[in-house]
């Protein structure tokens, strides 16, 4: 063992130079050519900057709601609810979310509510909702904002992100972008 100690130390030091200094610097260098120089994709709206990929809490009736979050969309941390599918307390919570939604969205049948609106995401920062989740809120927003439902549906269509290359993965809508566009609609 003794004769291995010195080579191990030297090898470790050199590896740190390569892997902890050279490698991150190269990546950092590449990031300088990336959007916002690697400080995270941003959207600017009315002079304010938002992180495009980090979801925001939307609970007011005039906005498209985002999904429930276990961390209240505070990206200082992240995480899911970690509730088990069989957890009674959790199922009651889901039921309560459904009920709340129905109260805020009169005229919507229960069967129209997509599951993403009543379940918390894994990160608590999910920036997206499903297309159905946007559509199901149209009636409410149209009424509050006094915009024709058709216009809202068109907006949703415009903001719907297609699967990757049109082939892979789900369709989705970025809630922040949708709501900014909604604000711009006026």
């Amino acid at each position, binding site marked *: 063992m003794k004769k291995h100690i010195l080579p191990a130390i030297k090898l470790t030091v050199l590896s740190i130079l390569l892997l902890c200094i050279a490698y991150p610097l190269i990546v950092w260098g590449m990031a300088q050519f990336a959007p916002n120089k690697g400080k995270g994709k941003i959207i600017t709206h009315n002079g304010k900057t938002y992180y495009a990929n980090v979801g925001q809490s939307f609970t007011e009736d005039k906005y498209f709601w985002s999904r429930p979050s276990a961390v209240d969309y505070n*990206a200082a941390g992240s995480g*899911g609810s970690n509730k088990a599918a069989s957890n009674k307390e959790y199922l009651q919570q889901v039921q309560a979310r459904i009920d709340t939604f129905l109260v805020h969205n009169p005229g919507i049948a*229960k069967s129209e509510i997509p599951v993403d609106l009543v379940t918390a995401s894994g990160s608590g920062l999910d920036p997206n909702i499903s297309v159905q989740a946007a559509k199901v809120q149209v009636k409410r927003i149209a009424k509050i904002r006094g915009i024709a439902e058709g216009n809202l549906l068109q907006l949703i269509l415009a903001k719907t992100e297609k699967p990757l290359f049109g082939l892979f993965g789900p369709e989705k809508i970025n809630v922040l972008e949708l709501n900014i566009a909604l604000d711009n609609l006026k």
Partner: protein
Amino acid sequence: MNTEILGIIAMFGVTLLLAIPLGKYIAKVYAGERTFLDPVFNPIERLFYKVSGINPDNEMNWKQHLVALLTINLLWFLMSMGILMNMGSLPLNPDGNPSQSADLAFNTTISFLVNCNLQHYSGETGISYLGQIWLMFLQFVTAGVGMAAAVVVFKAFREKSTTQLGNFYNYFLKSCTRILLPISLVLAAIFVFEGMPMTFDGKDTITNLQGDTVQVSRGPVAAFVPIKHVGTNGGGFFGANGAHPLENPSYLTNMVEMFGQFIIPMAMVFAFGFFIRRRKFAWMMYGVMTVGFLLLAIPNINMEMNGNPAITQMGIDNSLGAMEGKEIRLGAAASGFWSIVTTVISTGSINSMHDSSMPLSGMNELLAMMINAFYGGAGAGILNFLIFIILAVFISGLMVGRTPEFMGKKIEAREMKIAMIIALAHPFLILVGTALAAALPQYTSATLANPGFHGFSEMLYEYTSSAANNGSGFEGLGDNTVFWNISTGIVLLLGRFLPIIGPVAIAGLLAEKKFIPESAGTLKTDTSTFGLMVFAVIAIIAALAFFPALALGPIAEYFSLY
């Protein structure tokens, strides 16, 4: 076809296609043959050897390999404890995160040292950027160690009869420089352009559209995430790991991250075949692993896409699947698929919360780690698989009326003893650990996030993940307590080094034996029949040892839900 399913097929297909040439490349690297990266890395490596006083041509026997391996690990352990317990007052800490307590530092160190990355802290608040970069270092080198150990086994079966199994430092360094580093760089390039942060700035504070003020954690994520996957480590930069929108911003990064964690375990199988010049044998291994993988993955995709029946009953539109703990941009299918990818190989990164998986999905995740050999971690997977092969060779050898032999070497009492100890160690660590946790509710019951069967599953998952060096968790478990930190720390250590020592010892012992040429009476180990046998051994050993525990956890939960 459903675009979510198509995405999975595309990802799996691309990985398989690229695994074969990469396997060939890896075999060449370890055999010391010429590769296209020679001009870059030859001078670097020469410098490393010269400064470190290492002669890469100085071959070691299996015992010397293990001594070198354990020594360097001990060194890293000490360094890591020093850094994690003091990083609060060291540079690169813009958020002013605190140093870790001794027990948390112990757990974090061990868990990164053993290529597991069970994280009892959250990246946003529990560690400085210096700490993150140190952990990134460990993610590189521990993967390198696992691969180096696997190459000792490769070498043992390449030669007819030898005690000289190459140089540990050579295998280790080449794994890092020529395999892990280049792939990581390619991945990082994709990630930075997909919006993954790469900055040394601290948290940003913003006021969002509705007017709430929140913070946004950032950091050198794009350097950290590639090796987290390529080295099958899985330690997340952020608490939510691969579910975090900055750690996995798009469906494309999700595909690339899955590819990143999948490619080396798969390629190592083919590398084994190329290296020992038995490609058909590699295909047998690959076949068994793939069948096992698909048998776990397909039901999971299906169950997650079908959603939670208790929620379906509430009468809402459940067609998106079980979205609790999942991200919309990734979808239920890719999350179900990832949950098995990350558990069959020892990554343990997550892109959805496993705690909220359907009960039997959770069981499959557990089974994947209980088996821990369907592809398996970088290097470690092959070592684990070797144990199952030895057992299968023994039983099937008897079944054809011949003293069992593998690769021309007789399997005798000594090898059986080691194989049996390693095969036993895994259920021992998992079951005894869980039993301890179940028997000591004063330490554990308050840490559980869910009641009943699922609470039991959380404890079972924690030890399974530790023993398999996986690192994922049923994260509802409040695991940053002295009890969990120390007990899982011990399981992690044993779960890592026993399965390295055992297979390397077996391979070393077999390598010393006389080579027996094949005859018509020799049981061929590269056939589908033998593959079936290996599969049966794996299935039966896992099923038999863990069935009662699974019955009390996910199975009972399943029957109570449906």
